[in-house]
């Protein structure tokens, strides 16, 4: 059974690019465009990995990450923060609240795909 990935982003173009990249590697996908939507899908879909933007309507990526980390049944879920917030303090904050990786936009597609694959093979 293929691994499941949830893409959370509100930029349509970026979502399209991520969908293409992940589908190409054979992952099962779902997309959420707002924070609240993401929270819902996380429970229903139980993805193995979440590609999570930070600046989202309703609920930002940090909050979602924190929620996942504080919920026992979601413990195995991997989280990659994928955001245009590139300041040092943002990166530190992201890793501190439990993200498995922090990738700044614009990202290298090769690098992103490798990171995702490594994380899911373990």
């Amino acid at each position, binding site marked *: 059974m293929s691994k499941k990935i949830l893409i959370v982003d509100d930029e349509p*173009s970026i979502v399209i*690019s991520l969908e*293409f990249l992940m589908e190409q590697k054979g992952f099962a996908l779902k997309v959420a465009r707002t924070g*609240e939507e993401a929270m819902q899908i996380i429970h229903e879909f139980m993805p193995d990995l979440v590609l999570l933007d930070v600046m989202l*309507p309703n609920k930002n990526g940090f909050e979602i990450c924190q929620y996942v980390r504080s919920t026992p049944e979601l413990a195995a879920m991997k989280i990659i923060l994928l955001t*245009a917030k590139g300041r040092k303090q943002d990166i530190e904050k992201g890793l501190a609240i439990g993200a498995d990786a922090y990738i700044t936009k*614009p*990202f290298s*597609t090769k690098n992103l795909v490798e990171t995702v694959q490594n994380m899911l093979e373990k």
Partner: protein
Amino acid sequence: MLPNWLVFIISLLYLGILFAIAYYADWRADNDKSIINNPYIYALSLAVYCTAWTFYGSVGRAASTGWGFLPVYIGPTIIAPLWLLVIRKIIRISKQQHITSIADFISSRYGKSTFLGGLVAIIAVVGIIPYISLQLKAISSSYSILTTFMNNSVATANSSNSFFEDTAFYISILLATFAILFGTRHLDASERHEGLVAAIAFESIIKLVAFLFVGLFVTYFLYGGLGDIFSQARRLPDFERFFTINQASGVNWDEWVWITLLSLLAVMFLPRQFHMAVVENTNEKHIEKAIWLFPLYLFLINLFVLPIAVAGLLHFPGNTVDADTFVLALPLTEGHRWIALFVFIGGLSAATSMVIVATISLSIMVSNNIVMPILLRVKSMHISRINDLTWILLMIRRGSIIVLVLWAYFYFRVIAEYYTLVSIGLISFTAAAQFAPAIIGGIFWRGGTRNGALAGLIAGSLVWAFTLPTPFAAEAGLLPDSILTEGLFGISLLRPYQFLGLEGMDPISSSLFWSLLFNIGLYVIVSFSSRASVLEHSQAAMFVKAPWHSANDGRYQLWRGTSSIEVLESLLTRFIGEQSTKKAFFQYAQDHKTDWEKHNEVDQDFISYTEQLLTGAIGAASARVVIASVVKEEPFSVEEMMNILNETQQAISQKKVLEKKSQELEKATADLMKANTRLRELDRLKDDFVATVTHELRTPLTSVRAFAEILHDNPDLRSDQKHNFLNIIIKESERLTRLINQVLDLQKVESKTMELELTDVQMDKVVTEAFEACSQLAEERKVICKTDLPLHVPRVPADRDRLMQVMLNLISNGIKFSKVGAGKVVVKIKVKKEHLQIDVTDNGIGINKKDQQVIFEKFRQINDPDLGKPAGSGLGLTITQKIIEFHQGTLWVKSAPEKGSTFSFTLPINRQEDKTVASN
């Protein structure tokens, strides 16, 4: 008894030794080989404090009151350490200002006031004369005891003799001679007399040795030591009271405290003490040793007072012999006449030293502060015609010495018979204590004024005169008794011993209390309520800050004047003699490297120097008058006074300016802090702005990069997919370009560097054009666009491209936010009197009140969960608003949730153009 001639010869011999010592010391001083320039001589010379009162009177007082004799010595011992503060300061001031007496000191401090100086001199003379007469009495009675003592009894005092048969008279004449020879040998600016000091120090040694000798003789020869005396003393009926202090013993603690206070003032401000401690001081360092040497001397001279007193009481029961004479009577009655003679010499030394120094110090005051001012005033014309004034000055000095001694002698013959040694001494002490407030206040408090000092001194001395000398005179029968019992003019509050109703205090304590109370009270109150003259101000400043002053800034120059060297030289020669003048001028020339040949016109500094020299000779007040008479240009011309006043005013206004400046500074600091906070806030905002801009730039860039990489890595993509991805890249690149342009625009409007290219703009045409540009977007979103334009729209001066930008922004916003599916955007132009108003209305979801405030801020976008993220950077409205503001218009929004929004802005119509149109 001893034969009269022998005692007389011995006395003369002793005085001869004094003359010799004084002469030798003066001779050494003339050759610059001072023998008195050391702290031991200085401390010994201060022991002039111990007079015949100490020598004879202490034993007398101890015999009647036990410990009661002590406070007079405790006071000086307590105050001695403070001399480092007080006396040292007074010495510095006096050296700087050439002050030679206590009267001059006070007069000088309070603006060189002639009147004040005279007053102090009078108080000093009136207060001290009885004290001098007391010494004469002591000499006289000791002399008669020595020559008439027989079988435990003394012949009655020989006051009935005519004065030419009285030894005391001849001794007085001798003392006056001594004082004249060694106190007025020459006129000197510093008024220092080394011979005098040497002789006084010698006398201090003699009286101490004599007293210790008789003490040892009585204690260890007549009795078997101290233990023996006091064990025998237990036989005395009232032995206990010797060692207790209470009402019964005649001395209580109150009195102890008051007399201690009194004597600690007297030891500094008695004229003779002031003279020895201040005027004759050669080096202020000597004080450091004197502050323990002098108390040590007092301790030693009091060591055997009680044993002698007790021995006397044991020897002469039943008051057959006056206790004041025990020191003489004890050796005499035991047949040791030579010891008695030695004791007599000791007493003589105590008495003569006091008489000599007191007379000299008083004569300086009398001549400088009373006679000279009167002469200068009354006969100034006459005085100015005399070429050599030195001899006149010396004659005044010498004459006043003779008058003072004779006055004292007369006083002794008439009044002093009635009193014991101690009481008259304390009366004089109380008089001297009146100088304390003006002096101590004068050197530590700038605020003390001449009027304050005058009021205090007058009140204090009047209270003193009424509460001490007056009742004594009444008791002596010189004044009616009724003053004592009923009070002055029958007013019971004015009874000297119960002054103002205060009872239960001994006369001395009561008088000291009241006189000091009035003195200090009036000094302070009047000082506060009176104004000081300019000269007073400068003198006050000078006195108060004296210890930190170097000798050079000592002379305050309060007046300008010119004079020539010849004039000043002849003037000075008249007062202090040719030799002293030449010496002084030579000294000055050396110190200041001045060549008199070249500089005939003398400067201000030199005039001050001359005045200082004169001050030493004739007192500060007189010196001022004399100098003023020869220096051209009035010392206090109106102009000069105005200058001084101006300077003062300038100083005051400068102070005000300073105060204002400091207030401004405080305000500036507060402003700076505010600005700093604001800056930090701005810095944070800038930081946020940069973060936001980069975030906004990264987002389209992410898509561009991602799809470029995808296209690159997947050459075999389907062509429709390829087309789709390339489209996204193009769109995102356009977005990036737009964003960069907007950021640049924003930078321009925010730094106010945007330049408008003004042309006459047809606003209706701009609206139509903008609609055309947005038609594609409107079609995509299925939004109906309408315009509502009047027939004639006046041209407005504006930058057409910018206005187009504004319209595009508002219309595309309207399209984006209008009702989904049934959107409608209307643009309306209204022509008002002075401006155009353009309304852009949509039928969208509206904006709530809170959000209306923030939509014009940078990067503020209102996110709607249903609609997702709105397109655009969030800079559009900010820039739009700024552009409108650049055109002197305003932009605002009217909206309510679910009721659509209307963005309106105004543009001023160029009225000048309208006018030209109208005139055409």
